[in-house]
């Protein structure tokens, strides 16, 4: 229960931070990406503040013993359970596809989930499509990437 409670508190803080900074508003995210238009640099302030606090958290985590919490590995693992690779085509290709979707709608996963509180059918359309996209990746990973890995 302890892990569930801390995760719930973390998610709640995250959602409150997204709503307070208006990152839940797609128009605000698109206004940041629109550097040649009426540019709104707010997102950079959100990232800057988040990064400065998160870096403090990382420093504390590094000074602790690995057994101090439920951590099984200091480095997150790639989706297939294999250790994360270097900067490869899969990373850049995935980030590029994500970037197209992000620029198209102004939603990334966190703000989309937090915006569900609005009850807007458009947010639900986006979230449902995002889950379908994740499911399509699972299929792609099993059929195409697994074949490529075993062919090597």
């Amino acid at each position, binding site marked *: 229960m302890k892990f569930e409670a801390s995760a719930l508190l973390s998610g709640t803080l*995250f959602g409150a931070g997204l709503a307070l900074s208006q990152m839940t508003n797609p128009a605000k995210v698109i206004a940041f990406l629109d550097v040649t238009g009426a540019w709104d640099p707010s997102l950079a302030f959100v990232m800057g503040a988040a990064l400065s606090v998160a870096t403090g958290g990382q420093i504390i985590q590094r000074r602790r013993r690995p057994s101090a919490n439920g951590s099984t590995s200091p480095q997150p693992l790639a989706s297939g359970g294999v250790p994360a690779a270097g900067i490869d085509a899969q990373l850049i290709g995935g980030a590029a596809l994500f970037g197209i979707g992000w*620029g198209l709608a102004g939603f990334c996963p966190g703000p989309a989930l937090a915006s569900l509180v609005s009850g807007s059918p458009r947010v639900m359309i986006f979230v449902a499509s995002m889950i379908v*996209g994740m499911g399509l990746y699972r299929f792609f990973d099993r059929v195409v990437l697994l074949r490529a890995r075993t062919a090597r």
Partner: protein
Amino acid sequence: MTEFTPVSSAVGGGLIGWATSLLLLANGRVAGISGILAQALWPGSGEARGWRFAFLVGLPLGASLVVGLQGTLALEIEASPVELVIAGLLVGFGTRLGNGCTSGHGICGISRGSPRSLAATATFMLIGGLTVLLMRAGLAGRL
């Protein structure tokens, strides 16, 4: 057209930093939302889903607290339903292929000093900006 809001952005961003730090220190986990969502829906063998669902429920819950305090939640969606479907599919597929999104790569990864996350963040910011540029140049409304 939105207004520059440096103070609420910095305060909100700070809360996000506390959130990722809490999950890291208390659970030993990276607050990558796309990964948490995917693994809550399709858990790997021996993977716990309870904390993932708890985290995900917190996101709209936290937003609702701000709505309670402020009275409103600005939500201006320019994209058409078809654009939302295409965007959702790309965000879902792309974040799994690239193993992270704005939270996992942009905040957690960069704060850990990960070159992969820095490269991913630079890529999605650049491509996101180019996409907005193309939409503004006349693609908008045609989808």
